[in-house]
């Protein structure tokens, strides 16, 4: 493999990591409050707003049921508005973030719903405000599950990021399609796949380890 190709692979790996990091970061920034709200706004819950809950839930479902590749194409005008272009690594971050947000929101909603309602009642009995209950009880108690959820989200984003390569995004997917597929360079394709496998394995084992460290429930005296 020529040094030029190796340089390209390194560059593409960096692009992929950047895209995934930005999408996962922004997805968490938007997805965390959305997920917390979805988990606490049904009838009788802390921030009870059943109508808003239903509307946001429907929006989340709509976004999640749109195949990613179609989402990428469908929001091109919006992508141009935000990134100034619809091609390349920066542009790819827009659909990735939009796909990541509802996914992460649902994962966080699930994690929060797993928290024992008795803890919420205990916090209420201490005079905690709903916001204090979220900050001091729900999120800390759900943190191990949230960590595992975010790990899953990052792994999925690695797959999505390869898909944006098909429509002119940057990164490993783009490299695999243009060099590995269109230029018949199976060795490049092999390396791309290998790097993705290594990335997924690494993310998963870091996530597992972190979640285990955060989980204080399984320790015994």
């Amino acid at each position, binding site marked *: 493999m020529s040094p030029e190709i190796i340089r390209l692979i390194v560059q593409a790996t960096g692009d992929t990591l950047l895209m995934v990091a930005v999408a996962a970061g922004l997805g968490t920034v938007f997805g965390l409050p959305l997920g917390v709200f979805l988990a606490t706004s049904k009838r009788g819950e802390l921030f009870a707003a059943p109508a808003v809950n239903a509307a946001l839930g429907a929006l989340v479902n709509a976004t999640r049921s749109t195949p990613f590749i179609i989402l990428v194409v469908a929001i091109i005008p919006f992508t141009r508005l935000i990134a100034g272009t619809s091609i390349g690594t920066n542009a790819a971050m827009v659909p990735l973030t939009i796909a990541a947000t509802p996914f992460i929101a649902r994962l966080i909603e699930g994690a929060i719903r797993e928290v*024992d309602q*008795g*803890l919420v*009642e*205990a*916090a*209420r*009995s*201490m*005079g*905690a*405000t709903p916001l*204090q209950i979220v900050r*001091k*009880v729900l999120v*800390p*108690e759900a*943190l191990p599950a949230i960590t595992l959820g975010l790990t899953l989200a990052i792994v999925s984003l690695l797959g999505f990021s390869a898909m944006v390569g098909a429509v002119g995004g940057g990164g490993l997917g783009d490299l695999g399609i243009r060099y590995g597929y269109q230029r018949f360079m199976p060795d490049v394709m092999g390396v791309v796949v290998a790097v993705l496998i290594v990335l997924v394995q690494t993310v998963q084992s870091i996530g597992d380890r972190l979640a285990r460290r*955060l989980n*204080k*429930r*399984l*320790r*015994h*005296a």
Partner: protein
Amino acid sequence: MNAPVRRDAFSVGAAPLPIADAAIRFESVGKVFPGRSGQGEVAALQGIDLAVPKGAILGVIGRSGAGKSTLIRLVNGLERASSGRVLLDGEDVTNLTEAGWRARRRSTGMIFQHFNLLSSRTVFDNVALPLEIGGIPKAEIKARVEKLLDLVGLADKSGRYPAELSGGQKQRVGIARALATEPKVLLCDEATSALDPETTQSILALLKRVNRELGITILLITHEIPVIKEICDRVAVIEGGRIVEQGETFPIFTRPQHPTTARFVETVTGVELPAHLTERLHQQAQPGDSAVVRITFTGENATAPVISRLSTTIGVDVNILAGRIDAIAGQPFGSLLVSVPAQEPALSAILGALNSLNLKAEVIGHVS
């Protein structure tokens, strides 16, 4: 069972307390929950009149579904009354807003059956939680938490997580946490129901200490009559959302009026006839039979040397079949089953002698 029951019909020694003396007072409180779609409303509580005197330990006992969980949650606004009034320290809190309740809750501690400790926080941080919520400065939190962990005997577990503790230790953390804001009232929601009998005893002893030493009024709900027997000054029996009997613990235990109360207390005050005698027990006396007499001792008479006195003064043989002497709310109480000659006039003399000692004596049958 469905006949209307007058609220005061079964009240024993439950003279209404002046409002000034009550830390918690319910006045004809009712609570209805909206039914599931297609069904009517469900009445969880009806016509509750109950006062918890300042500094007392009052226990509400009932089976699951009797309404006791709803009742205790009316005291810190986790549930709201549908009718009637709830007064805390003489102040009507029935119509407090949620914000008003939040401030109120900081002077009411609560402990739970399943402890409800945060698994992600250490023992220290769990006890600190209500103080953080109340916006207490860090340095003061540290001082207070250390003092509380000392009080409950867990100073050495400060840095441990709840998963590393036993059930009894978890409830001690729960108690320390409930006391952190220096409340005047402690609510105990089945606090010992998840614990083994020995641990239950130690938690009850701690609650009693908290009550006596810190002067904290305790309202507890339970389905376990031993809890009432051990630490409650007063008791209310709840069934089907109504209080069927209430008053001081000792008279309620020794002279229960309502059948539900009787069923609860007989598990701790009753004495069973040994099985081999139950089979032979018959109501009609036959010649040569012995009468089986149940003698109930209460208060100061519980320690009187009754049997030896019967033998010496009347000159009859008294055969003890079964018995127990126990303490209820700190007062001795006992039950004894004896067999004595069934023929007159000896039997009447024996019963007369027992009655003159203010002991309750009843012939429950005869054995040959």
